[in-house]
């Protein structure tokens, strides 16, 4: 799937991955790839601005951790982020159902 097609869904994808537990940027990208069977190949650098944006919106919380002597920023979902994820899922379901109805 092309990056353009993912636009608009990236926030929801990140929130969905972080709903499983706190993680860092690289792991979020890898998890999206894994869950999509490699179909969703994100432009990797664009995930970080999205993570920062979601944190600014209060949907994510982040803190430093140390791994092998280097700093790592770990993100976790806030309560507001969980609510937003529910909204994103509902919106996606409605969108997918509508498109499915038209396409089929």
């Amino acid at each position, binding site marked *: 799937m092309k990056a353009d097609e993912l636009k608009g869904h990236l*926030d929801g994808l990140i929130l969905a991955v972080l709903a499983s537990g706190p993680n*860092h*940027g*690289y792991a979020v990208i890898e998890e999206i790839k894994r869950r999509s069977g490699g179909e969703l190949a994100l*432009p*990797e*650098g*664009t995930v*970080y*601005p*999205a993570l*920062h*944006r979601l944190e*600014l*919106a209060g949907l994510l919380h982040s803190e430093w951790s140390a*791994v092998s002597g*280097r*700093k*790592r*920023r770990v993100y976790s979902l806030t309560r507001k982020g969980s609510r937003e994820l529910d909204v994103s899922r509902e919106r996606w379901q409605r969108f997918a159902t509508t498109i499915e109805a038209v396409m089929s």
Partner: protein
Amino acid sequence: MSGYLGRLDAELQSRGFSGGLRGRIAAEFADHMECDPMADLGDPELIAGEFADGYGTSLARRTACRAFLLVGGAMALLIAMFFDGGRLAGWGGYEVYRASSPSLIFRASVALMALAAQIAIAASLLALARAWRLRRVPVISTAEARVLNRRAAVALIAGATAMLMVAVSLVWQIDWSYFRKWGMNWFGWPYGPSGQWYVLGVALAAALAQLAALPAVLYAARRRPLLDGGCGLLADDLALGAAVSGSNRSSDLIAVSSAVVLALATTAVGMVNSGLARAGGRGLVEAAALLVCYFGLGGYLGLRRGYPWSRPARPDGQGSDVEALGTLNTDGADADPELGGPGEAVAD
């Protein structure tokens, strides 16, 4: 790795990011590259642009909300001070004011205080309304961010001016012999003839608090998003506009209607204490001030497109109307001398 991080850091710096935030971003990207040395992280310019979009949007909304809270608090104090004819502020009431022959400085400070307070209240409410309307937009346009920052800046400057004018008006009223009498004996001050000194302190503190918030607005202006797109008008702020690209008609109608309502309300309230002629005159002055502010500041604050005296647009879409739109409907390429252009390099 260091080459890519260096380019990213330079791009972030050129977009006004502070050293601390750049360090955080660099550490995150370095960690990513340690995990996958072959990772394709993308063009540093585009990545930095996406960071700028996110932070610019968030900062613009936050400064608008912060300006509303600060100005709202200051104006609540102001209203409390002058609710009872200014007795709390040590004026002794309007009757005393009318009976006395105040100096020109006092008259000017009171007039400026009244005007600045109204501009501050209007600009802060409009900043909040625009921030609320855009609350769910992930990245707002450059033009919308500019309007948010301008409204916040105008609200804070006008709010600080109003409070400074309170201080100036009090200087005219304060009994300076009281200071000589009590000196640094702070505990004796509340037993004095009035709380003028305290009001003076509160007014200066409120003015300083608002002025202290201005650097944050400038900081937000330097890091605004670089997204093309339109900008709503007054009608959109009030959820009455048809579309962002609409004409000035709805916004102008709202402003004129508001002026009429203000004139009638001021006249009605004024008639309780004075005659129809006097109250009506004050109502007309209030309405005229509102319209002057609307047409004078409307283009700057994103209430309407351009100014009434702008030349009409030529059929080919060129001309001053387009230039006037340039204050709102521009891409991110133009520089804004008042609040900093998006393309300019900003030092930490």
